[in-house]
C-alpha cells in the first residue's frame, strides 16, 4: 500500500492534525479509499464540525414534535393522525458553478430527504440570494437557477409555492440557493434511517452510479477562488423523471412493512448514507461494490463510494423481503440491487473485486469526527443613528422603493414554477405565507422562508432573532399557528473569528426567538465557506417556518377586499431606519443597527391578530417587514386592486414613520363596526393600535395630499424584474 502523502491530505481538505487523528482511530495509515471516505464524512458539510457545539443549544422539543434534528428531515404532528415532514437545505456552491443543474439537484435532494421518511412532498419553497443586478454574472445565474428549480419541481408535480429573493453585492461570488420541501405522511408510517440489527440486506435502488459529483461535499466546504469554474465536473446532473419514479416506488414499498431503515444518497453518496445508517442503528455495514449498479465502465471503489450521482436510495430490508421490494422497483423500471448486509461489528467495510478496500470503525466517521470550538471575536457595533434627508417626498420614495431589486414583484420567477399542481394551493406565491391544503381535509399548512441578511451583518444576534420572528409573523398573518422551523445557516469562513462570531451570535439569536415563540427547530443545514477571494457573504441564516390552519376557510389574505374598510396598525412605530430598505435604496447608505426584536411583544401582538383571524373576525392582514408601513399599505392595495388613504400618526417626521422597519407590527383592514371593536379590544389589552385611514379608490393617498395611482405603482412593482431580465436597462444603484 502506498503511503498517503501530505499533498493528498491537503487535496482532500483535511488538516495534518485531522489525518493524525485518522491514523489513531484506524491504528494504522489509511489507504486512498479510506482517506476519501474520511474526507467527505469529516467535511464541514457532513460533520458540522464548526457548528455542532453551537447547534446543540437550539430548542428542538415541543409536544407536537415527533422527530427533531438528526434524521433526514424533521416531523411534526398536525392532528388526526397526519404528520408534516419538512426540511430546508442549501445547494449554494454547485449552483454558482452550474446554476441549472445545481439548483435542480438541490430541489431533487431535498425532496428525497422528505420522501425517504415516508412523506409525499406537497410543497416546495426556495430562498435565493444573488449578487448585485449589474454584476455581469447575475442574470445568467438568476435565469439558470430559476429554470433549474422549475425544471425539476414542475416535472415532479410538486407545487413550488413561494420563497424569497435578495440581491446584494456580497453574493457576487457566492449565490445562495436554499430549497425547502414540505411533505405529508401518517404519524404511524414514518421511516427512519437507523439500520438496527445484523444480517439484514442492504439494498440500492434508483439510478445507476456514475462519476458525477465526486467530492461535492468537500467542494461545498471550501472557499472559492478564480479557479472555481474548474470545479464544474463536481456538480451533479439531475434527472427528475427518475426521481418521480423513485418517489412513487418508495411510497409503494413503504406501504408494505418490509423496510427497517431507509436513507437517500445525498452529499457524499453511498459513503454517508451507509455509514450514517449503521451509526444510527448501532450496527456495522459491509458493502460489496461489485454489486453497485454502474453507469460507467471501470469505476474504482473510490469513485463509487464518493460519487454523488442523483436519484439513489439505500434501504435496509427485513430478511426475505428482497423479492417483494425488487418487484416494485422493477415495475417502476429502476435499478435494484442487494449490495451488502448489516453486521454487528460496528465497522464500515467495503469490498471490491474480492478485496477489502476500506475497513473503518463506524463511530470514527460520526461521533469521533472532529468538533471545533473555533475562536470568535465580536465586531464593533454600529454607532449612532443614520441621518436622512427630511425634505424627500414620501410618495415618490414609495414608488421608487416598489421598483427596486429587493422589493419588486417576483412574478417573473414564480410564473415559471407550477404552483397549482396537486390542486391544494390556496395561497399562491406573493402572500405573507404560502398556504397549501392538507388533501381531502379542511386543514392547511402555511409555509414561509425568511431572513433579512442586512440586519445580520451589523447585529447577527438581533438578525437571527428577527429571521425567526418574521417567519412566525408571516405564518400568523394568514391565521396559522406557527409550529416549527428548519434553519439553513449560510455564512462565510468559520476559521475567521469575526465570521465565527456571526455564526455563534446568529445561532444564539435563533435559539432565543424559537424558545420565546414556542417554535422549535426540527432540522436544518449549514453552509459555510461562502467566500470568494476572501470576501464573505452577508450572514444569511434562512428560516423555513411551518404553521397549521385548522380551518382553511378562515384564512386571511394580504390584499384589500372591500372599499371603506378601516386600516388599522397593530404595534408600535418608533421609526427605526437603521439598515432599512429606505436608507439603502433612497439614501444609498447601509448604516445603523438592526431593528431590535422584543419577543414578548412579538408574541402578544401575533397572538392577538391570530385570535381575530381564527374567530373569523378579520380576513385582511399583512405583516410589516421590508420597506415598512407605507410599502405594506401599497402591497395590500396592489394585491386587492383597491386604493387607500392614510394619514401619519405619532412621530414628528414622516420618513421614519412611513419607512421605519420596527418589528411586531401588522396591518388589518376591517369594516367600520368591526374595526371599532378591534381597536377597543387592543387598547384593553395594552397593545398599541392606530387607525391609519381607509380603503377605496384607485390610488394610495398620504396625509390627504400626496397621491400615486395604483397603475403607476403597479408599473414600478411589476416592471423591474422583466426589464432587468430582458436587459432593457442597467438598474441604477446608489
Amino acid at each position, binding site marked *: 500500500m502506498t503511503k498517503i502523502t501530505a499533498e493528498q491530505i491537503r487535496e482532500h481538505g483535511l488538516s495534518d492534525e485531522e489525518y493524525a487523528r485518522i491514523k489513531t482511530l484506524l491504528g494504522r495509515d489509511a489507504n486512498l479509499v479510506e482517506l476519501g471516505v474520511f474526507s467527505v464524512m469529516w467535511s464541514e458539510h457532513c460533520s458540522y464540525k464548526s457548528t455542532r457545539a453551537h447547534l446543540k443549544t437550539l430548542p428542538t422539543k415541543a409536544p407536537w414534535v415527533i422527530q427533531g434534528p438528526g434524521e433526514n428531515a424533521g416531523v411534526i404532528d398536525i392532528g388526526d393522525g397526519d404528520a408534516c415532514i419538512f426540511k430546508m437545505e442549501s445547494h449554494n456552491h454547485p449552483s454558482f458553478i452550474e446554476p441549472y443543474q445545481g439548483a435542480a439537484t438541490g430541489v431533487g435532494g431535498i425532496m428525497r430527504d422528505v420522501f425517504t421518511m415516508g412523506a409525499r412532498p406537497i410543497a416546495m419553497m426556495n430562498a435565493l440570494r444573488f449578487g448585485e443586478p449589474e454584476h455581469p454574472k447575475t442574470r445568467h445565474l438568476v435565469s439558470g437557477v430559476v429554470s433549474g428549480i422549475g425544471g425539476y419541481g414542475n*416535472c415532479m408535480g410538486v407545487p413550488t409555492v413561494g420563497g424569497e429573493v435578495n440581491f446584494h453585492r456580497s453574493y457576487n461570488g457566492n449565490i445562495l440557493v436554499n430549497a425547502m420541501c414540505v411533505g405529508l405522511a401518517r404519524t404511524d408510517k414514518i421511516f427512519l434511517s437507523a439500520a438496527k440489527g445484523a444480517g439484514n440486506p442492504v439494498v440500492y435502488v434508483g439510478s445507476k452510479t456514475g462519476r458525477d459529483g465526486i467530492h461535492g461535499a468537500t467542494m461545498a466546504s471550501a472557499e472559492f477562488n478564480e479557479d472555481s469554474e474548474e470545479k464544474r465536473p463536481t456538480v451533479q446532473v439531475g434527472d*427528475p423523471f427518475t426521481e*418521480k419514479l423513485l418517489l412513487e416506488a418508495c411510497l409503494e414499498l413503504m406501504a408494505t412493512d418490509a423496510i427497517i431503515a431507509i436513507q437517500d444518497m445525498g452529499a457524499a453518496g453511498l459513503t454517508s448514507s451507509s455509514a450514517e445508517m449503521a451509526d444510527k442503528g448501532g450496527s456495522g455495514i459491509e458493502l460489496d461494490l461489485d454489486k453497485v449498479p454502474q453507469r460507467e465502465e471501470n469505476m474504482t471503489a473510490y469513485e463509487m463510494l464518493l460519487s454523488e450521482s442523483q436519484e439513489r436510495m439505500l434501504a435496509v430490508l427485513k430478511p426475505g423481503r428482497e423479492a417483494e421490494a425488487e418487484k416494485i422497483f422493477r415495475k417502476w423500471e429502476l435499478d435494484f440491487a442487494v449490495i451488502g448486509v448489516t453486521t454487528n461489528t460496528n465497522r464500515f467495510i467495503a469490498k471490491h473485486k474480492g478485496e477489502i478496500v476500506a475497513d473503518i470503525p463506524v463511530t470514527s466517521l460520526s461521533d469521533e469526527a472532529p468538533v471545533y470550538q473555533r475562536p470568535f471575536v465580536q465586531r464593533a457595533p454600529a454607532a449612532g443613528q443614520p441621518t436622512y434627508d427630511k425634505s424627500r417626498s414620501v410618495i415618490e420614495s414609495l414608488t421608487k422603493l416598489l421598483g427596486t431589486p429587493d422589493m419588486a414583484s417576483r412574478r417573473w420567477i414564480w*410564473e415559471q414554477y*407550477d404552483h397549482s*399542481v*396537486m390542486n391544494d394551493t390556496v395561497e399562491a406565491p406573493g402572500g405573507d405565507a404560502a398556504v397549501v391544503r392538507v388533501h381531502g381535509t379542511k386543514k392547511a399548512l402555511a409555509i414561509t422562508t425568511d431572513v433579512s441578511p442586512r440586519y445580520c451583518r451589523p447585529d447577527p444576534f438581533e438578525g437571527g432573532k428577527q429571521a425567526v420572528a418574521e417567519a412566525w409573523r408571516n405564518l400568523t398573518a394568514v391565521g396559522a399557528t406557527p409550529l416549527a422551523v428548519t434553519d439553513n445557516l449560510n455564512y462565510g469562513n468559520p476559521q475567521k473569528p469575526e465570521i465565527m462570531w456571526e455564526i455563534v451570535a446568529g445561532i444564539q439569536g435563533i435559539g432565543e426567538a424559537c424558545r420565546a415563540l414556542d417554535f422549535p427547530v426540527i432540522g436544518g443545514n449549514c453552509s459555510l465557506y461562502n467566500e470568494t477571494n476572501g470576501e464573505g457573504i452577508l450572514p444569511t441564516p434562512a428560516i423555513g417556518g411551518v404553521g397549521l390552519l385548522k380551518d382553511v376557510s378562515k384564512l386571511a389574505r394580504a390584499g384589500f377586499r372591500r372599499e371603506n374598510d378601516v386600516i388599522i396598525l397593530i404595534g408600535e412605530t418608533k421609526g427605526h431606519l437603521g439598515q432599512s430598505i429606505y436608507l439603502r435604496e433612497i439614501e444609498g447608505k447601509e448604516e445603523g443597527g438592526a431593528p431590535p426584536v422584543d419577543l414578548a411583544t412579538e408574541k402578544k401582538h401575533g397572538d392577538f391578530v391570530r385570535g381575530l383571524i381564527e374567530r373569523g373576525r378579520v380576513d385582511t392582514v399583512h405583516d410589516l417587514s421590508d420597506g415598512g408601513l407605507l410599502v405594506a399599505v401599497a402591497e395590500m392595495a396592489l394585491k386587492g386592486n383597491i386604493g387607500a388613504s392614510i394619514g401619519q400618526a405619532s412621530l414628528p417626521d414622516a420618513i421614519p414613520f412611513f419607512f421605519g422597519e420596527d418589528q411586531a407590527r401588522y396591518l388589518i383592514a376591517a369594516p367600520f363596526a368591526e374595526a371599532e371593536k378591534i381597536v377597543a379590544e387592543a387598547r384593553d389589552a395594552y397593545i398599541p393600535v392606530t387607525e391609519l385611514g381607509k380603503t377605496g379608490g384607485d390610488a394610495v393617498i398620504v396625509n390627504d395630499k400626496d397621491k400615486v395611482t395604483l397603475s403607476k405603482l403597479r408599473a414600478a412593482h411589476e416592471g423591474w424584474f422583466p426589464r432587468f431580465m430582458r436587459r432593457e436597462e442597467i438598474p441604477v444603484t446608489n
Partner: protein
Amino acid sequence: MKSAVIVFPASNCDRDAATALEEMTGRKTEMVWHRESTLPDVDLVVLPGGFSYGDYLRCGAMANQSAVMKAVKAHAARGGAVLGICNGFQVLTESGLLPGALMRNAGLKFVCKPVTLRVEESQSAFTRKYEKGQSVTFPVAHGEGNYYADDETLNRLEGEGRVMFRYQDNPNGSARDIAGILNEKRNVLGLMPHPERVVDPITGGTDGRALFQSLIEALS
C-alpha cells in the same frame, strides 16, 4: 358517467383529474397503468397532465408508443370520449388523434398562471354547459403549449367549429390563440389549460366544473 385516468410513469396531474372527476360524478375513477393494453368499460378516458416518460424527447412522443395508447385509440375509434389535458393534449397530437403539434412556448419559458379563455363552441359533449362566447379562467402550467398547424388545417378547424377554447391573452404563442381543439368526430378534446384545477373556490375558482358537468350530461 364512468371514467378512467391513464397513468404514465411521470404523469403528475393524474390524481388531480381523478379527484375532480370523483367530486363531480360521485363515482370512483379507474386509474389505468401505461402498460395495460385494455381499458375498463368506461365512457370517458382522461390523458392527464405531467411529463409522461420525462419528455426529454419531444413531449408525448414516447407516450404515443405505449401499450395503453393503442387501447385509447381503439376507444376513440369506437366513439368513446377522450379528454387530453396539457401533457394529455401533447400525447393526442403525437398520436394523431388530434391535428397539429405543441411547440416550445414562444417566450421559451415554462408559464404557470390563470388565463382567461373564450368558449368558442357550446355544441359538444365537453362544452354544452357553457355559453358560446363565455369567458372562463383556467390555469395553464406548461413549457410546450404553443399550438401549431398549417393554415389549411387551422382554417378547417375554424370552419368546422372545432376550436373550442381560445386565449384572450395568448401566453405561449399558439396559432390563432388556440387553447383547445376537438377531433373531427367531436369525441376527442385536447386543451392546454387545466379545467381540473378549477373545481373548488378555495383553490382558484369553479370555472372548470361546467366542462365535467357537460360530460356527465352527455355521457350518462
